[in-house]
């Protein structure tokens, strides 16, 4: 082992397109996922801008009602299934989880590559569907409309089925990696919190995704063979579809947020230069969230004709989710207390997460309250709620992670002031776009319509202008990220003074991560002695 003094880094060694397409290196696979999902983020974002343009003024602004139905479906389906579910676990998780536990790779490297190509196949099916007859059912594919719609529902749900399979394999790989490949001394209670978060996510991926698998399969059969299980006209039950769908899709919202929370748990101690407050509470709250997330799906169906008893149970259980979530938020805040806070870009995003995710979580509690939800269900209030958790939460976490780990992944630093300006644009743009929607929803504007009465015009205009700030912010970000790759100079191995294992190796890492398998002797966030 000691004979390999100077090995090339993983980006350039081995060289060539073929070596990338057939790689089994978790870091390269992570980057391939990242490039793919970010492309979908871009495409989904274009549809979002178009939706906002249509809603800028009442009446027909840009597109017909039918086109609008298709566009919001594309936006939702692309963002959920092709961007937000894979982006953190499959891209950043793939890259950093093995390194953070001192492993050379994930447990099953070839399966890892296979799951990437399965993802590509599923995404291709869905894109094909969009180019064939599209889809206008919304990302939720509710029956019976999805049985009758004359769009390419079969293809797109087949795509979701296949991508789900990929998600299962990724989760399975990570669970085994965490259990079997930790380096000497890396006990469960010494694992970085990002690893805990990805681990909890992986459990949900493995346990929830098969259910969306069978649901989409039944929907496909519904259309191909008229099996009638979800079709009231054939004796079936349309609400059963909603149960099946949300049995997956509620846990899936924690597939989306837990990895983001994991990143925040990494970034906050590093940039507050303090040991994380309540390590075990944060670690186990991830598992608690994963557990409870399976018991609350009915909160999406308060007005779908569930029994009162079911409604009450689901309402109470939903409020329980807020407990482990709040535990995390309090612990992060406590970590900040009396820390030496450095407002570098990753930290700005982490703080934005704290601020906006909290708004998203609290408004979730409004929705969990039965009588309030009767008023707010299917209004823009729900749209604002889930954008505050998914964009204000997950995407802020993702951006914190991207800025935090960029030097490690590519060995380059980004231009700090460009990053701060871009952060400012995104922060303002996001809140303009979505805070207005809480009011719109509260005033009664329903979601998923291309038109609205003139009373709502003012707030909608502000919301649309906000979306342009977001566009500007993300365009600037794409520019400085890409430019950084061509800048001269090399990032140091540990630019932020991180304590976790990924910062103890070269930037970018070598093919097998560690020259020698490390032995861990302490906790991941031991600050107080380090000076920057």
């Amino acid at each position, binding site marked *: 082992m000691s004979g390999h003094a100077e090995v090339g880094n993983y980006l350039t060694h081995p060289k060539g397109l073929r070596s990338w397409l057939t790689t089994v290196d978790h870091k390269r696979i992570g980057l391939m996922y990242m490039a793919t999902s970010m492309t979908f983020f871009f495409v989904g974002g274009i549809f979002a801008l178009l939706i906002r343009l249509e809603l800028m003024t009442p009446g027909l602004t840009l597109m017909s009602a039918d086109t609008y139905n298709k566009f919001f479906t594309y936006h939702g389906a692309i963002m959920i299934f092709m961007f937000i579910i894979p982006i953190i676990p499959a891209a950043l998780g793939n890259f950093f989880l093995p390194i953070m536990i001192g492993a050379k790779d994930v447990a099953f490297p070839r399966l890892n590559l296979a799951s990437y190509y399965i993802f590509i196949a599923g995404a291709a099916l869905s894109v094909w569907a969009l180019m064939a007859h599209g889809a206008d059912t919304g990302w939720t594919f509710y029956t019976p409309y999805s049985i009758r719609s004359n769009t390419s529902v079969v293809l797109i749900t087949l795509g979701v089925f296949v991508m789900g399979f990929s998600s299962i394999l990724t989760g399975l790989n990570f669970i085994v990696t965490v259990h079997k490949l930790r380096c000497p001394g890396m006990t469960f209670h010494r694992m970085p919190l990002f690893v805990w978060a990805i681990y909890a996510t992986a459990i949900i991926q493995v346990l929830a995704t*098969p*259910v969306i698998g069978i649901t989409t399969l039944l929907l496909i059969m519904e259309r191909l063979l008229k099996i009638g299980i979800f079709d009231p006209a054939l004796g079936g039950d349309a609400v059963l579809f909603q149960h099946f769908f949300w049995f997956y899709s509620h846990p899936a919202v924690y597939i989306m947020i837990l990895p983001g929370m994991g990143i925040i748990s990494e970034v906050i101690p590093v940039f507050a230069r303090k040991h994380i407050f309540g390590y075990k509470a944060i670690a186990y709250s991830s598992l608690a969230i994963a557990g409870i997330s399976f018991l609350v799906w009915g909160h999406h169906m308060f007005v779908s004709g569930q029994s009162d008893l079911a409604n009450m149970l689901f309402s109470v259980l939903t409020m329980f989710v807020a407990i482990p979530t709040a535990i995390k938020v309090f612990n992060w805040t406590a970590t900040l207390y009396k820390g030496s806070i450095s407002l570098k870009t990753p930290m700005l995003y982490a703080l934005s997460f704290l601020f906006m995710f909290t708004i998203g979580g609290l408004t979730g509690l409004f929705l969990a309250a039965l009588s309030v939800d009767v008023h707010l269900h299917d209004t823009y209030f729900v749209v604002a709620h889930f954008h505050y958790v998914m964009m204000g939460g997950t995407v802020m976490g993702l951006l914190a992670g991207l800025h935090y780990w960029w030097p490690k992944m590519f060995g380059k630093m980004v231009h700090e002031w460009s990053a701060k300006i871009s952060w400012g644009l995104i922060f303002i743009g996001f809140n303009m776009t979505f805070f207005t929607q809480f009011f719109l929803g509260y005033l009664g504007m329903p979601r998923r319509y291309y038109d609205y009465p003139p009373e709502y015009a003012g707030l909608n205009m502000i919301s649309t202008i906000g979306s342009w700030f977001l566009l500007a912010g993300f365009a600037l970000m794409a520019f400085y990220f890409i430019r950084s790759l061509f800048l001269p100079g090399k990032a140091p191995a540990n630019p932020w003074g991180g304590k976790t294992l990924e910062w103890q190796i070269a930037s970018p890492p070598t093919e097998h991560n560690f020259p020698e398998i490390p032995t861990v002797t302490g906790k991941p966030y031991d600050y107080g002695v380090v000076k920057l």
Partner: protein
Amino acid sequence: MTHGETVIAETKHKVPHHFDSAEQAFESSKLGLWLFLVTEILLFGGLFVAYVIFRGLYPDLFHTASQHLNKILGSINTVVLICSSLSMALAVDRVRQNDPNKAHQYMLVTLFFAACFMIIKYVEYTHKFHEGLLPGGNFTNAALAGDPKAPLFFSLYFMMTGLHGIHVLVGMGLITWVLIRSNRGEFSSSYYTPVELVGLYWHLVDLIWIYLFPLLYLIG
């Protein structure tokens, strides 16, 4: 690929470089497969839930409709699959005991039982098609025409046994694959992970049928 590669004696198998030992690799693969089996159970779980709900809603209908399934063929198939599980378990055991020839024979026997299962299923399906006992909107059977919900039972029947049948086919493919690799002398008592895993998968496929059979055929 130069770090810590251990070559196991007797076979050409190399422990992948990111594992420390053959045992760690074996344990990992096994944990991975168990997790995969959990996802399979959850996949079928959706169908079982649908079954429970509709049977709860229409108990009489499920009773009458189930009379149209062939209990004899169903029972034969149950026995056939149990036998195939036994022969697969013996095959795994023989590989582990360094007795490849016996192992091959047992694998062939397993394949034979699996093929019998599929043939019998084929006979049953053609019979159902013939009588118009088809899922949902395609249902044309005259005897049950009075009950508008009757097609639901057959939707579930075809979905459950069809998905199971696909799993049997996949299992047959996997058994053939380990049989070929075993023929090439790739396995021995020190490395037989794929055989063990395919065996586990096969037992799960059998187990699912053990539940499907009474639920669909023996409603009394």
